[in-house]
């Protein structure tokens, strides 16, 4: 089983999906000859040609809007938004159109569309190359929101997303692209959209995270283990639909819950997880439901000192874990 980074796993997933089904095509800025600004689509233009790996004009609304139309004409488009920070012009197409088309047509039309986009910070991207956008979209019924953290999950979830008859927002944390490596099987496999995954079983506290923060949580859990605290780390993997069963079962076992994300706290996805736990596992709780998120500032600054002050870290997560464990 070869080891590869998360970016290579996504590229391999795209390649295999395109080889298996001629309806699959890629549409986005610089995805062709350049292979994408992060090189996710590198080599695919040469292999599949300009009719299946298409450089779009620099206009996000029509990238998504055209892919919605293409999805309704018997193709399986994969739209790439170069940075999640630039997805705002496509918000109307994603939320009002892609997410509502099946519902508003009473099940008549489907939009089998994948929108891939790199998100997240810690790479000196400043305000407009570092944002996390999941909370805006996880709010919307009709849309699926996927946030893989490992190469294995990324490839398996991507294939599920391409085969899904619904619009799927596929969020790739850009810092995990080359940082996170893992074994990916050579045989064809899927990771289903929906189920969370317990990445590290534990008994004392439950921690819920996704993307880069999942890895920071695993690192912090390792630190806490040395201090005699057993931390369960749950990778949410899919934010919508959300695996509430796995979340609640974990909290019922440990009685303690911490949610960690890089997106700012106020109105963030952690609030939804906290509310579900408070509503359905109140009697099992032995401490307050805690959250860690980015600070409530408009976005992540460029200067190293300010960026570091923005990002949750394994150390700050470990501190929160200790506080929670002490209840």
């Amino acid at each position, binding site marked *: 089983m070869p080891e590869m980074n998360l970016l290579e796993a996504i590229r391999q997933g795209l390649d295999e999906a395109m080889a298996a089904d001629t309806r699959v095509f890629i549409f986005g800025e610089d995805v062709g000859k350049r292979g994408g600004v992060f090189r996710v689509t590198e080599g695919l233009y040469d292999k599949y040609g300009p009719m299946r790996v*298409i450089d779009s004009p620099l206009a996000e609304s029509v990238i998504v809007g055209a892919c919605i139309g293409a999805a309704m004409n018997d193709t399986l488009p994969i739209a790439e938004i170069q940075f999640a920070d630039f997805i705002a012009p496509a918000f109307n*197409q994603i939320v009002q159109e892609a997410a509502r088309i099946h519902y*508003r047509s009473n099940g008549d039309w489907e939009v089998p569309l994948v929108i891939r986009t790199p998100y997240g910070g810690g790479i000196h991207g400043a305000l407009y190359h570092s944002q996390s956008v999941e909370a805006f979209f996880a709010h919307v019924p009709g849309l699926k929101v996927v946030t893989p953290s490992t190469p294995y999950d990324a490839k398996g979830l991507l294939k599920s997303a391409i085969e899904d008859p619904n619009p799927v927002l596929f969020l790739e944390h850009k810092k995990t692209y080359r940082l996170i490596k893992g074994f990916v099987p050579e045989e064809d496999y899927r990771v289903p959209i929906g189920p969370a995954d317990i990445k590290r079983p534990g008994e004392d506290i439950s921690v819920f995270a996704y993307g880069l923060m999942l890895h920071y949580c695993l690192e912090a859990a390792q630190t806490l283990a040395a201090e005699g605290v057993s931390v369960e780390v749950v990778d949410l993997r899919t934010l919508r639909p959300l695996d509430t069963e796995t979340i609640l079962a974990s909290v019922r076992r440990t009685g303690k819950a911490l949610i960690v994300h890089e997106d700012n706290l106020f109105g963030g996805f952690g609030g939804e997880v906290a509310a579900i736990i408070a509503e359905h596992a109140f009697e099992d709780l032995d401490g307050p439901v805690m959250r860690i998120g980015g600070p409530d500032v408009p976005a992540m600054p460029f200067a190293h000192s300010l960026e570091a002050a923005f990002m949750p870290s394994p150390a700050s997560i470990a501190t929160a874990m200790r506080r929670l464990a002490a209840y």
Partner: protein
Amino acid sequence: MTVSINEISASPGFGHDLPPHTLQDMLRYMMLARALDERMWVLNRAGKAPFVISCQGHEAAQVGAAFALSRGKDFVLPYYRGLATVLVMGMTPTEVMLGLFARATDPSSGGRQMPAHYGCRRLKIVTQSSPVGTQIAHAAGIGLAEKIKGGDAVAWVSFGEGTTSQGDFHEALNLAAVHRLPVIFQCENNEYAISVHQRQQMAVASVADRGPAYGIPGISVDGTDVLAVYEVTRRAVERARRGDGPTLIEARVVRMTAHSSDDNDRTYRPPHELTLVRHQDPIVRFVAQLREHGILSEAEEQAMRAEVAAIVDRATEEAERAPMPEPETLYDHVYAPARPRR
């Protein structure tokens, strides 16, 4: 590259060689759309239909264009004034009325959307929303998919002149132009976006002037002349099927009603203008043309009007009798079910 209607009208022979029965069919669809539309207003004022948004004055632009398309093969993406469009493409008067009354069997949305948000996958009428202009991007994407698949269907999309201020209009025209996609963009210019006149919407005299800016033909046509619209659309469809790319057509039409049943156009349109549009009725015009060329006798016209009135009566009765959606269906179709893997 903007072409005026005068060149188009120069083609020889009345009716562009369409047989008399086809010309009569065109008129029948225009009359049917008008009669349905007028009935909707009556039902609205009688308290039976909460909302009406009209096609009146747009019938020639829509019927002329739709007759140049291949039904069941080409995609149409009408906007909310597209009643005549969807009738020609195969939606029945009863189905239209089911939408007006928000009944469970409304083919567009099962009573979920406001009336006039037409859609039907079987007929390749693409579902539409209320935010204007989004469908123009979808049309470009349908054309892109068609090019990828190597098919020869075209996507025909309509919108008002106010919508040309939206980014999606410009982004979609540009994309379709760059990739020479088989798309026909029909702007039905009735000079008003609710209350805002075209002068406040754009600094160009004609929406067709936008075409050359994107490297595609822009054609302005009298949208109250059904045969002129048919002819320009026929040429645009030919061009699209040949792989020569998209065409922007401005059909100059009249809005014969208020924006919707919730609007009062006397608050912003001068009285003489409201009188004038009554004299630009595309149906009156086409009847006169057919009469002049001996294609429609007075008796045939009267028979056609009676036939259409009976159809509207029956459609209204059938739709009114149909059941409302069951409350428990509220949660249906949030997500499409997984498909078996190919």
